[in-house]
């Protein structure tokens, strides 16, 4: 099993966000779906130790994540945040920075291509890209650390339908070419159907159901 969460409690500023949450996420494309404020993004942050739960355990391939070096874990399980958060500078500088974190010399053009951007984006100012382009740039940056798992926090929430479809096509292509597992957070059950084999539905900080997408999210 890729990830297991066992009775996880997490509070932020004294407010409970996750309450005794237990869930499993297998290898391959999976999805955490739920309404806004249900704790989806928080769950994602626990998977690579950007935060630790106050109670319970998070296991990655059977090992408690707290027993792992957090930096090594994050290079293996890389999170792409929801809102654009690129560093000042060009797209290439962002990608090379990520590569340096993992001690790698990234192939910038190849990574841009994987993220659906052409090579001309390398020299562009990251702050001046459109939201969709920034999402792709963050994806290219994350791929520079050569992760085995990608955590994607609502990668299409700020995009129109055409841009969303394009990003989804890019992610499916990534699955095919790199064979990395993904955990995608979304509030859109239709997107969960399109993008995942396994879904965990959460609400009010608890997992309400989980299983194969085909069983849980029947086409209405």
């Amino acid at each position, binding site marked *: 099993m890729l990830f297991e969460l066992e009775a996880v409690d997490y509070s*932020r*500023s004294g407010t409970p966000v996750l309450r005794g949450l237990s869930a499993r996420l297998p290898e391959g494309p999976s999805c955490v779906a739920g309404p806004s404020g249900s704790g989806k993004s928080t769950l994602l942050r626990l998977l*690579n*130790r*950007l*935060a*630790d739960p106050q109670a319970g355990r998070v296991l990655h391939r059977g090992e408690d994540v707290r027993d792992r070096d*957090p*930096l*090594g874990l*994050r*290079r293996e399980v*890389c*999170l*792409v*945040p929801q*809102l654009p*958060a*690129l*560093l*000042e500078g060009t797209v290439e500088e962002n990608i090379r*920075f*990520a590569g340096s*974190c*993992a001690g790698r010399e990234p192939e910038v053009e190849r990574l841009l291509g994987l993220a659906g951007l052409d090579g001309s984006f390398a020299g562009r100012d990251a702050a001046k890209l459109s939201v969709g382009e920034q999402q792709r740039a*963050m994806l290219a*940056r*994350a791929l520079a*650390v050569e992760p085995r798992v990608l955590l994607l926090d609502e990668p299409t929430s700020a995009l129109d339908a055409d841009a969303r479809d394009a990003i989804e096509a890019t992610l499916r292509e990534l699955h095919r070419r790199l064979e990395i597992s993904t955990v995608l957070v979304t509030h859109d059950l239709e997107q969960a159907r399109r993008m995942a084999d396994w879904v965990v539905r959460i609400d009010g900080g608890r997992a309400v159901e989980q299983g194969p997408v085909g069983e849980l999210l029947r086409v209405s």
Partner: protein
Amino acid sequence: MTSSIEISLGEVAASLVLVALAVALSLWRRADLERDIGIAVVRSIVQLTAIGYVIQAIFDEDSLALVAALIAVMVLFGATQARQRAKRVPRSFVPLLIALSVAGVSTLGLVVALGIFEPEPRFLVPVGGMVIGNAMTAAAVALNRLGDEMHDRSREIEATLALGATATQAATPILRRALRSGTITLIDSTKTTGLIFFPGTMVGMLLAGADPIDAVRLQLILLYALLGSVAIAAVLATTLSYRSFFTPAHQLREPPAP
């Protein structure tokens, strides 16, 4: 240097006319600064008079131990004052103490070791006071910027941590900007000194009848000493403080409740 000047209490009192002008302007524009101006006047009279007598006593004793004690007190007060201005930085008092102490001791030590000043109270007290005061301001500004950016850019910091970056790597761009904030004011004033304004030491020496060239040279020495000390203070204060924003697992800490 030729003769010193003597200032009477009456002359000091006469200068309060200018303070009255400031109060009148505040009243006219309803800026509500009268109380603050009044407090500033009273505090400056009390504090400067007190320190004047302290300095006189230190000069009379001609004791380096008393100089060290005075500088230690200034460092303590400076760190306390700077901490008030950088409330968003947790546990900043000890880093500030270290930053101001190192800035003060290293700058004074260097100017003595280089033979610029003799190790005597009449040099060490005023230079030490200037160094600590400017170092305090630089450290406070740098820490203030650090605190603001660590909160305002938390999203970017966490996105950087999410790539497997260390806390240091994530904070480095912010540390650079904080250092610039802490030192740029003095750098800019050093660039324009003599063109737009005459710095205080030079003014004091000219008023006391010193040769203008001597006054300029002493002022240059002090400006360069200050540049070094503010850089030391700003770098140390921010370098020793930024880690308090992160956990040992390179996670961004939740900010304390307001």
